[in-house]
């Protein structure tokens, strides 16, 4: 790992100022970024740790919205979102392993937008709002392809706001070595309609399966999905599964999510 200057500010304003330098980068829980630094795939001149900013760690209701601070760990979300939004808490409780969940953060996951990460599916699958130090992004505009988001350099995810679904479930087919999603599907029946978001499958990262949404809008039952299928084109194909296999798994996991959401809702 190349060395860097390490800063650990106590407020978002200080962090934003420290990140204004061209080669500065934010450090969330470090569960993705520290391995990246070790491989010398990144060489920031300054690392701005967000771990000293208490104001970035909270889970609370504001009106009808569940609001989660950008620095909140997966373990805290698993615990504190369980009563209001069980599907989100369960998603957080199955990211990696307990030690990873004690460091990794929702803001880091959404900023990274790994094509196999779990939180992007929840954010897109509920139409969440991603709040930053300078902007608010609708999930539909925020995810812009593998490891790419609407964030500008130095922009910090400070909060994520979720409207609560009437029924929802995230079903993940685990890639057993990495514990990421080989395919993960978040299905939510929202007040404005059904949303289906798929992670792990597509080369462009998380996406909405609109045909499934339309079918489930008419009848929220797994059977309506039997007639639908996704093309293998554009799906990830690797040593863990071919693109045809992933396309098939999307259907399977979506049906499982509908069954689980129905049971929970």
């Amino acid at each position, binding site marked *: *790992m190349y060395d860097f200057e*390490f800063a*650990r500010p106590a407020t978002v304003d200080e962090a934003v100022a420290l990140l204004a330098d061209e080669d500065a980068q934010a450090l969330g829980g*470090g569960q993705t970024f520290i*391995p990246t630094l070790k491989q010398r795939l990144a060489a920031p001149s300054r690392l701005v740790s967000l771990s000293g900013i208490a104001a970035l760690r909270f889970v609370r209701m504001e009106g009808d919205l569940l609001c989660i601070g950008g620095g909140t760990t997966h373990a805290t979300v698993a615990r504190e979102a369980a009563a209001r939004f069980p599907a989100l808490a369960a998603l957080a409780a199955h990211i*990696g392993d307990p*030690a990873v969940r*004690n460091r990794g953060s929702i803001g880091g996951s959404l900023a990274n937008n790994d094509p196999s990460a779990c939180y992007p599916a929840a954010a897109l699958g509920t139409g969440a709002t991603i709040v930053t130090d300078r902007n608010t992004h609708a999930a539909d505009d925020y995810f812009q392809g593998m490891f790419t988001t609407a964030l500008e350099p130095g922009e910090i995810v400070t909060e994520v706001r979720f409207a609560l679904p009437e029924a929802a479930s995230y079903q993940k087919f685990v890639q057993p070595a990495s514990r990421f999603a080989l395919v993960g599907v978040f299905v939510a029946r929202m007040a404005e309609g059904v949303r289906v978001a798929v992670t792990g499958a597509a080369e462009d990262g998380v996406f909405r399966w609109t045909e499934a949404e339309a079918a489930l809008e008419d009848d929220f039952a797994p059977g309506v999905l039997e007639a639908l299928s996704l093309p293998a084109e554009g799906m990830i194909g690797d040593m863990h599964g071919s693109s045809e296999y992933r396309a098939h798994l999307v259907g399977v996991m979506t049906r499982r999510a509908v069954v689980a959401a129905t049971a929970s809702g």
Partner: protein
Amino acid sequence: MTRVAMMVNGREVSGEVEGRTLLVDFLRQQLGLTGTHVGCDTSQCGACTVHVGGVPVKSCAMFALEAEGAEVRTIEGMAAPDGTLSVIQRAFQEHHGLQCGYCTPGMVMSAAGLLQVNPDPSEHEVRVWLEGNICRCTGYHNIVRAILAAAAELRGDAAAAA
């Protein structure tokens, strides 16, 4: 170099570190606490598990400077000062929960983290919890047995521990 200070196993410690110095390297190289092992250095194996702020983390995936002011506990802090093993450590010994012992410090710290939040785990819960701790020797059965026995003993359930 930057000065860093933290509590390790109840003792105030400090040292000079670089930005990139990992917590595990600070513990092993500067404090000489070599009980915390580095198995993979890629966040996979859990041999480097320590407690920071009372919860298990992978010390190879955290910078020393992020632990500034924190309470850290390592395997050296598990036994009593006179060397008497903790209940969990003794259970690993009694139930043959280790062979080469390389993974053991991480296993013990991870198990301690589990029993703090769940004093009465099922076998399945123990296995799921250990997802981030890899052992190349034991096949896990005796590790799970040891943790279940330690849990029972800590609950004061002597019959189940026997």
